[in-house]
């Protein structure tokens, strides 16, 4: 239990996916203009990442490793994630139309979100057990959510600022992201058990 908690805190703050591992930068910069879209996207990401973490663990431990096919990991994982996203989309459409309406447009984008594939590759590399892998994936998704929501607040403020012409848009967002990333360094001092 203590170990799971330290994985949770660690991947939320210390090695935040967006701000220190640079995974999922495209949606981080793409959909962070408004808080609502940021929340919608990150909800979909947490959901898919949790499921993907579980499924990739099972495929890796029960199919790829026993058959000595570890070199097919990349292909297997990306196809699994693509299929999973498609599956989630269909299920949500049939069973929860309101949820589908709010998350639907973000789902196809998730297949090429490197945070999802990244978390799958990292939990395999670190040799996590199934519960650890699931906690790690969900926590990374929550870390992504936190970065995205914090950042969308900053970007909403940036819109009304007087910014030099050549810095308008993406460049100033990058500079702001640098400062948020510096702030997250404060968490690096946390010492975790386990």
């Amino acid at each position: 239990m203590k170990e799971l908690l330290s994985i949770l805190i660690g991947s939320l703050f210390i090695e935040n996916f967006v701000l220190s591992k640079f995974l999922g930068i495209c949606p981080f910069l793409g959909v962070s203009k408004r808080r609502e879209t940021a929340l919608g996207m990150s909800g979909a990401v947490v959901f898919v990442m949790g499921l993907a973490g579980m499924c990739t663990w099972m495929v890796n431990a029960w199919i790829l490793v026993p058959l000595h096919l570890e070199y097919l990991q990349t292909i297997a994982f990306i196809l699994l994630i693509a299929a999973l996203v498609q599956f989630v989309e269909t299920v949500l459409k049939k069973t929860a139309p309101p949820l589908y309406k709010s998350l639907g447009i973000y789902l196809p984008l998730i297949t090429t979100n490197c945070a999802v594939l990244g978390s799958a590759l990292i939990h395999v590399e670190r040799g996590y057990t199934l519960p650890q892998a699931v906690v790690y994936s969900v926590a990374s998704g929550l870390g992504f959510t936190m970065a995205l929501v914090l950042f969308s607040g900053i970007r909403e403020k940036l819109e009304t600022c007087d910014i030099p012409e050549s810095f308008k848009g993406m460049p100033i967002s990058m500079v702001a992201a640098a400062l948020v990333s510096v702030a997250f360094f404060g968490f690096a001092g946390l010492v975790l058990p386990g």
Partner: protein
Amino acid sequence: MDAKRMKEVLTAGLLKENPTIRLLLGMCPSLAVTTMTKNGIGMGIAATAVLIGSNVAISLVRKIVPDKVRIPVFITIIAGFVTVVQLLLAAYLPDLNRQLGIYIPLIVVNCIILARAEMFACKNGPLLSTLDAIGMGAGFTAALLVIGSVREILGSGTWMGIELTSHLFSPAAIMILPPGGFLVMGCLIAVVNKVSLVRTGRRAIAAQAGQCSGCGNAEGCAGCASGEGEGGKA
């Protein structure tokens, strides 16, 4: 197919449509692996190799693949080439492979590669697609080289591992940490914006010369110009 079109396709990726700086694709590897120039170049070359392979393969099968399943097919082709590159790197350049780590398999989800497949390779023949891949790959590598050089020189005082600034200033370690990546990237995009603003600005000013005083927006224009001046100083 004329030579002019081929040259256009080949050079588009270098500056005009540079995938990293102009189209803002493939941000994750551009920020993550550029702590050292060498890693940046390695990443650029690996991605270029995948891009050439996938562009050629996709342009060859573009007429066979039904429209509805094209994205999964493209991703599978790309993942195949990434695996090939990954195994080659592990066999021949184990050091680079270790330093790039999970960012090598993550080339699969590099938006540049899927974007070129969608925008170019599935509409053009293999020869043009190869040229496009080479141009785009070179543009990506060049961007990584620039970002990597700035970060390595400022952050650790070396370039490609050669000691450069040992007596001039003490390196600012923050440049090789994550915030430095965002900062350098932002400034680089701003510089490129500035250059293109100055270029188009000159043309616009030349066109508008003599009309400015009578124009109701004259004040706004002046404000704009001074804003640009500040941007240039920063």
